[in-house]
């Protein structure tokens, strides 16, 4: 169980150093997206519309957080992972088109996704399901909500 600490954007070369069961700490910009956000992003791609953020080298987090708003500022109150299998129908295209390097969630994903990960250079990170306060307290700033 080797331990890696990567800051986004992460290069394909770095991500290919990882082996199954290694521990990975990711710092930097992480984008939360569940099924609807995956679908929307892929629709944008198909229409040639730019996404609000360039996802290359970033981490996508399967998460629908509990949030509150202080003035104009969003606060992550609880932000653990959701079941990743729901995103299996989108993730291979998502990895191929947007070049995310880390997919974070819980429960693991299917062959179509892992094949895309092997081909384009990405890993799946299992975050402890339900450990929502650990994730929320590690969130320094909610940059934007789309």
């Amino acid at each position, binding site marked *: 169980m080797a331990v890696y600490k990567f800051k986004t954007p992460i290069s394909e070369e770095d991500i290919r150093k990882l082996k199954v*069961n290694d521990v990975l700490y990711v710092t930097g910009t992480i984008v939360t997206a569940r099924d609807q956000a995956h679908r929307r992003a892929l629709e944008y791609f198909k229409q040639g519309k730019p996404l609000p953020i360039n996802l290359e080298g970033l981490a996508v987090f399967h998460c*629908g957080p509990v949030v509150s708003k202080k003035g104009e500022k969003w606060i992550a109150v*609880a932000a*653990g992972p959701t*079941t990743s299998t729901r995103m299996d129908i989108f993730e291979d295209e998502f990895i191929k088109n947007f070049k995310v390097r880390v997919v974070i969630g819980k429960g*693991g994903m299917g062959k179509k996704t892992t094949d895309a990960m092997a081909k384009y250079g990405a890993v799946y990170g299992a975050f402890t399901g*339900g*450990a929502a306060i*650990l994730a929320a307290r590690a969130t320094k700033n909610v940059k934007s909500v789309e």
Partner: protein
Amino acid sequence: MKKAKIVENVAFNILKQAVIYLPEDVKQALKKAYAEETSETGKTQLKAILDNIELAEKYQAPMCQDTGTIIFYVKAGAKAKDLEKIEEALTNATRKATKEIPLRPNSVDPFTQKNSGDNTGRYIPFLQWEIVPGDSLEVTAMTKGGGSENVCIAGMLVPGEGIKGLKKFVVDAVIKAGAQPCPPNILGVAIGGGADIAMKLAKKALLKPLNESNKDSEIAKLEKEIFEAVNMTGIGPMGLGGKTTVLGVHVDYAFRHPASFPAAVAFNCWAARRASARINADGTVEYLTHKIKL
């Protein structure tokens, strides 16, 4: 204070207790699992869970971002007053809890996909009524996570295979569920009645404390057998391997039709959130599951 207002306040309080504080029996079971887990990866997951439980209490925040579908089990004394006002009071408490705790809005119209934004909607929060003797009102809140709900299963088994068929059905369900329901899980298993009745009993069995063994020794034995069998799957905490796949198994049953063997398996995630309170006829309140001041 008016009865409806008391019910609303109590329902808000038990929702808050449920989502922030894990019941003591579940906490103890997780600590025991951590001490006994031999898989290195499994242990890291249990450590994260235990740390997270402490942080939720410290920061008064819901332990999991999926604050679930809200279900209220109400045991109403046959002589209790204002029962017609309870449903509205529970709905109001749900709205208030969503805004103030806060909870994630988890109630979506299946046709328009529109989220109501306040955890209410057609039949939601769901109410399960039971009429009991007396004049008090016992309300239990269960906030049921979607990840574990997605793997709940009911099946019509072959009567000739009996309990042996049931054991296979449960073990298969756990293997198929794998990492998805956030193991270590709690299982509610029920047989008999009918497809709906079995699932209803299985889900209700999730409310039983883990340290409360079944009064029927035959059923207690079956619970133990299922517990041991599913923990031999090696699925482990979060499906990353280990010997803790479930924390407990509760079995319930109804008599069955001679031609039918309905069976149901209800899964709860480790974040088995439940809280109960009793409202007496004089308006006094006893909190039954959580001895914590709010």
